[in-house]
């Protein structure tokens, strides 16, 4: 039955598919425009116009409908209320829309404009663009009236009928009400409690362990613990029950009494489990088999009063399938919930929340095989659920099953939110035997997340991707760069589980105008001074290759934290994610040495970790780039040193014979000098290594350890922690020399400049200037984390041996740094993001997206000399 509305306000769910139903001329479009935003209205007339340039072209109706359907689907997918402005008077036309609403778990609402025929025909007559045949409106009205009764049965959750122009005029507003499951304004903190199943003693013990005080006899909460959040506000904690309060255990009525009291007093939240739903059906007198523990509950309830039973009935009936909490960051549902169902309302959503999904198969125990939705979960919200008992609550793609089978004799678990801490109490005894062993099919030493994490889905990496980063702007990865990265990653990179970070590229300072120089420290200082930085650190730039070093205390730590088995307890990789050492045994020996140093220096204890990620420089360069040095650098030197003496000899002879070749001779003499300088420059990078003998590692950043990143520490802190580690193995490890410079102190600046001159005068590569703090920003956003100032001689191996000849230098000075800087910034923020995600135990795919993104960015064309 349609509800006739004589009121000035009607209310509809904030996410619904609103179908306007009414004949031509009933005023649907006007109505829609009055009460809804223009973007919310999908009009069949407008669609007809789009596909045929004529909104009255009935022959275009099929295409128009498809377009309307497509647009609506997109809106519903994105969680947007949508209004269908079409006559919709026939059952068949409504059916498709209802199906669509169901597909997206959105509530269908009907607003019927059942206007008198006279009103419609008058309106139609007034239109110049459309001339309807006289039978159309009466026919539509009669179709409408025939269908009116059955609208609810068709699936409409609410039906509003307006019968006259007065009805419409009287309606002032349509109020949008949030769905019951929407508790986004509730920010916690929460203690989410797994399946209790009548284990009252354990529940009370757990609540007490969490800091609650319970009147166990009366089933009342006496007091709840409080937590002070990051913003400094003190908040009272609340339990959230994931359902299955009852069945199998010894004291279901007591559990119900306590939870009901707490929920009714607003001290707790609760979502229903399948056992709770079944109990409700039994309470409602429905045919229910007394199995799977319900028989125990029914027996226990026999001694309770009818009033209590009635209150249980009301309580269970009022439970909402799931809750979306804390600005959408947390979802609690009994059996979990897929992303596309969160915050939606439909029968399917409720089913999923209660029972989860099954594959349609049954296992050897005759039980339906559960479809593990969490394996493919990529949603932003953390999902906490129960339903399936697991041996241990473990994270998988930002979801966690906290049903640790208390009633089966294991434990009752709570998840503290937002702390993400697990608190559990053991079961006092085993109250029931599970039909299927707990943890059946989980015999791998890797946990579920890590087993499946190894498999990244190509969908997340191909095409154009936009990645959000917490320290800076979104970073866009273009399709062509993704293509390049996919190939590089697949063919050359190490196991993606190790790749939790890639270092950013680094831009040089602005070009110096000093004679004979391309780079000089003063431009670097100027850059930071102008960016508003007053204190910087200058670090010696090592003559090696950039390397990321991950060291775990032992292989067990590598397995536990990285999910890596049989690949040793650490890795050294290059800035493009390739293994640094071709020889795996040598790599492990290297990792072993670093590990010893970490152990000896007490690093693991100090940082309460069993692994570390270091950003470092590994020397000598010749160890990694032997082929490049020989085939390119040495080859150029060899050719030049072979040729130039012959040239100068010929010129000298000519000059002796009075040929006017003096100028040429001078030119080639200076070329000879430049080439000699060039050969000396690359030789600085070459020294022989034998096994580990000769290798030097100079770490300069402690990137991450268990549960922590160190982007809030200044560089002096990084340097001092690293120098402690280096002391434990001074043969292999090398601390980086550095100077802190107050940019307003002219003497300090001058001293840093002269330090650079000394370093580069000895053939050193130069120095890197960084803001004193790891992360520095001004009103324009993040500032470059570092700029490099390279030495005059070193630059010969970058710009060519003769780059500093005055005629060459002049032309080389016009170099554009903007794209290099932008690249450095994007790579920097993605690198930090990757580490934050890893440290926060986000799924591999979300870490890998950032790392993949950095590799993709590396394929952007940038002048390689910068």
């Amino acid at each position: 039955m349609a509800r006739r509305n004589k009121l000035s306000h009607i209310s509809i769910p904030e996410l619904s598919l609103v179908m306007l139903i009414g004949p031509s001329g009933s005023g649907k479009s006007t109505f829609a425009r009055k009460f809804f935003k223009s973007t919310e209205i999908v009009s069949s007339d407008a669609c007809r116009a789009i596909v045929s340039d004529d909104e009255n072209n009935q022959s275009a109706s099929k295409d128009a409908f498809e377009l309307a359907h497509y647009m609506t689907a997109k809106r519903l997918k994105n969680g947007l209320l949508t209004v269908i402005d079409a006559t919709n008077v026939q059952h068949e036309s409504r059916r498709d829309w209802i199906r669509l609403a169901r597909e997206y778990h959105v509530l269908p609402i009907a607003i019927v404009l059942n206007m008198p025929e006279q009103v419609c025909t008058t309106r139609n007559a007034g239109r110049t663009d459309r001339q309807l045949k006289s039978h159309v409106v009466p026919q539509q009205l009669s179709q409408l009236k025939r269908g009116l009764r059955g609208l609810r049965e068709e699936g409409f959750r609410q039906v509003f009928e307006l019968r006259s122009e007065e009805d419409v005029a009287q309606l002032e507003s349509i109020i949008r009400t949030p769905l019951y499951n929407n508790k986004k304004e509730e920010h916690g903190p929460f203690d989410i409690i797994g399946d209790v199943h009548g284990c009252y003693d354990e529940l009370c013990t757990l609540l007490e362990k969490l800091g609650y005080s319970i009147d166990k006899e009366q089933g009342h909460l006496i007091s709840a613990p409080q937590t002070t959040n990051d913003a400094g506000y003190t908040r009272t904690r609340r339990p959230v029950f994931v359902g299955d309060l009852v069945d199998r255990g010894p004291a279901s009525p007591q559990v119900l009494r306590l939870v009901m009291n707490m929920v009714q007093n607003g001290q707790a939240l609760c979502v229903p489990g399948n056992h709770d739903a079944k109990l409700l059906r039994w309470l409602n007198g429905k045919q229910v088999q007394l199995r799977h523990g319900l028989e125990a509950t029914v027996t226990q309830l026999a001694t309770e009063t009818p009033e209590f039973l009635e209150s249980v009935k009301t309580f269970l009936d009022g439970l909402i399938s799931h809750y979306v909490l804390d600005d959408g960051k947390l979802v609690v549902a009994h059996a979990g919930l897929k992303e596309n169902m969160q915050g939606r309302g439909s029968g399917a959503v409720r089913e999923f929340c209660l029972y989860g999904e099954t594959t349609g198969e049954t296992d050897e125990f005759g039980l339906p095989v559960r479809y593990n939705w969490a394996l493919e979960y990529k949603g932003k919200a953390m999902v906490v659920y129960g339903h399936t008992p697991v041996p241990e609550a473990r994270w998988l793609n930002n979801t966690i099953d906290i049903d640790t089978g208390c009633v089966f004799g294991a434990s009752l678990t709570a998840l503290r939110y937002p702390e993400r801490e697990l608190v559990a109490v053991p079961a006092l005894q085993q109250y029931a035997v599970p039909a299927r062993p707990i943890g059946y099919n989980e015999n791998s030493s890797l946990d579920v997340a890590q087993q499946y994490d190894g498999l990244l889905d190509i969908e997340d990496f191909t095409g154009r991707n936009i990645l959000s980063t917490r320290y800076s702007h979104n970073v866009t990865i273009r399709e062509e760069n993704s293509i390049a990265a996919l190939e590089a990653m697949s063919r050359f990179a190490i196991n993606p589980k190790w790749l939790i970070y890639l270092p950013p590229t680094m831009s040089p300072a602005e070009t110096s105008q000093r004679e004979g120089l391309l780079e000089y420290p003063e431009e670097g200082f100027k850059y930071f001074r102008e960016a508003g930085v007053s204190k910087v650190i200058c670090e010696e730039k090592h003559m090696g290759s950039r390397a990321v070093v991950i060291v775990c205390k032992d292989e067990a730590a590598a397995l536990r934290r990285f999910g890596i088995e049989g690949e040793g307890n650490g890795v050294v990789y290059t800035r493009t994610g390739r293994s640094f050492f071709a020889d795996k045994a040598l790599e492990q020996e290297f990792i072993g040495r670093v590990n010893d140093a970490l152990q000896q220096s007490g690093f693991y204890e100090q940082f309460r970790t069993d692994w570390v990620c270091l950003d470092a420089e590994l020397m000598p360069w010749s160890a990694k780039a032997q082929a490049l040095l020989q085939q390119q650098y040495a080859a150029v030197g060899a050719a030049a040193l072979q040729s130039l003496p012959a040239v100068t000899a010929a010129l000298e002879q000519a000059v002796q014979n009075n040929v006017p070749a003096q100028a040429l001779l001078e030119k080639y003499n200076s070329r000879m000098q430049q080439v000699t300088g060039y050969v000396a420059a690359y030789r600085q990078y070459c020294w022989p290594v034998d096994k580990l003998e000769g290798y030097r590692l100079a770490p300069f950043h402690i990137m991450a350890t268990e549960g922590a990143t160190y982007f809030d520490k200044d560089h002096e802190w990084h340097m001092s922690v690293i120098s402690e580690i280096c002391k434990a193995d001074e043969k292999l490890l090398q601390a980086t020399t550095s100077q802190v410079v107050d940019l307003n102190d002219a003497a300090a600046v001058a001293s840093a400049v002269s330090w650079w001159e000394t370093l580069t005068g000895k053939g050193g590569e130069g120095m890197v200037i960084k803001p004193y703090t790891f992360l520095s920003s001004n009103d324009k956003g993040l500032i470059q984390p570092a700029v490099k100032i390279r030495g005059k001689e070193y630059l010969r191996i970058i710009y060519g041996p003769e780059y500093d000849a005055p005629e060459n230098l002049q032309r080389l000075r016009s170099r554009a740094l903007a794209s290099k800087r932008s690249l450095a910034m994007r790579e920097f923020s993605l690198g930090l993001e990757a580490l934050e995600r890893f440290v926060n135990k986000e799924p591999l795919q979300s870490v890998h997206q950032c790392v993949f993104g950095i590799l993709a960015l590396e394929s952007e064309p940038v002048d390689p000399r910068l």
Partner: protein
Amino acid sequence: MLLTITTTRYPATDLGYLLHKHPAKVQTIPFAAGDAHIFYPEATEEKCTAALLLDIDPVKLARKSGPGGNDFALEAYVNDRPYVASSFMSAAIAQAYSTAMNGRCKDKPEVVDEALPLEINLSSLPVSGGEQLLRNIFEPLGYEVSLQPAILDTQFPEWGSSRYFQVSLKNTIPLKTLLSQLYILIPVCDNNKHYFVGDHELEKLMEKGQGWLDGHPLKELITRRYLKHIGTLTQQALDILTREEGTPEEAKPAQEKVRLHDVRLQAVRDILLEHGVTAVADMGCGEGKLLRLLKDNSQFKRILGMDVSFRSLQIAAGKLKLERQPESQKDRITLIHGSLTYKDKRLSGYEAATLVEVIEHLDPPRLAALEKVVFECTRPPMVIITTVNAEYNIKYEALTAGAFRHSDHRFEWTRAEFEAWAGRIAAQFRYSVTFRPLGDYDETVGAPSQLALFKTSAS
């Protein structure tokens, strides 16, 4: 960078007339990458030496060149070209000595065709192929060759010698012949050219090679190298990435018969035909050789080619003429860019998957991902995997013991290793597996390649 031509034929100063350059001056002629200077270190009637000195502007050189195929991003900047005799030298010869090379001399026309005792010196000539090749190129033309190789770095003698030679050539021939031969043979030794080869290069080769190239024992090599094509179909992004740490070139042992790959592909096709497969996904299709074979058989209704190399896919698309497919054939063949270490919905829905010589290109620790992607996520009823048989390698003489057949191979398995791996896969993912050899079978070491055919119980 320095080419000197010396003659002792009296009066040696006739060289100046032949070259059309005055012995008392320094002449400078601009050319594409800088200047060419011509001067005479010595000019007496007994002995006259003309020097052609290239003064290549390295900055200009770098700006001219785009991204190349070299595995070194700074190649354009740290470059041997300013110091060696290369195609730039040929260009300078053509520019500075064009009259002489063309056999014109208005003052002493009678000397043009005269065979003169000539000695030329190249300060540094890059030779791809070493001393032997250098001799094989010049000695058949009557040159007396003496040379001095440059070692890479005196401080690191263990690095060995470079490909650069200081070369001295003596011959008694007309100057124009000498110049023509140098013009062709300098870039041939170097096996590189600074400009793109066009149609007119063939004409130039014919013209300058007249009278000597036809009878040269290395005629074929000289022609091939002279007309060397520099690929232009490079994708910038891909290059920057792949060249950073070097992508090795294909280095198949000469003995491996070209036919072997065809044998593999035909075997795979025949298995598919025999089993009535109509929809097949070729995972790691490369340039689409198998796809082309399958395309010609109407039993295959849906064919998917997937590869990690975008460039290979582009070549495959070209060879399959996908652009010119009739409407009815359009959806029959699909090419996708993907990777076997990432799960991929697009691979689903085929009756068979083929991985022909693919697995050995993955680092062993990454195989676990491939196994899951193919046998668990995609799970086609049939999977065909082929890989080389390492035991057979001893039959390839060119292959040093323990070396792989292809430099991108990350491993090569014996039959036992392959069968153990495949057996484990079959057990783990509930497939049955059978094996067969591919190629000429040897009693001791088996066939050069091996194939595993996996089937689910349903198929």
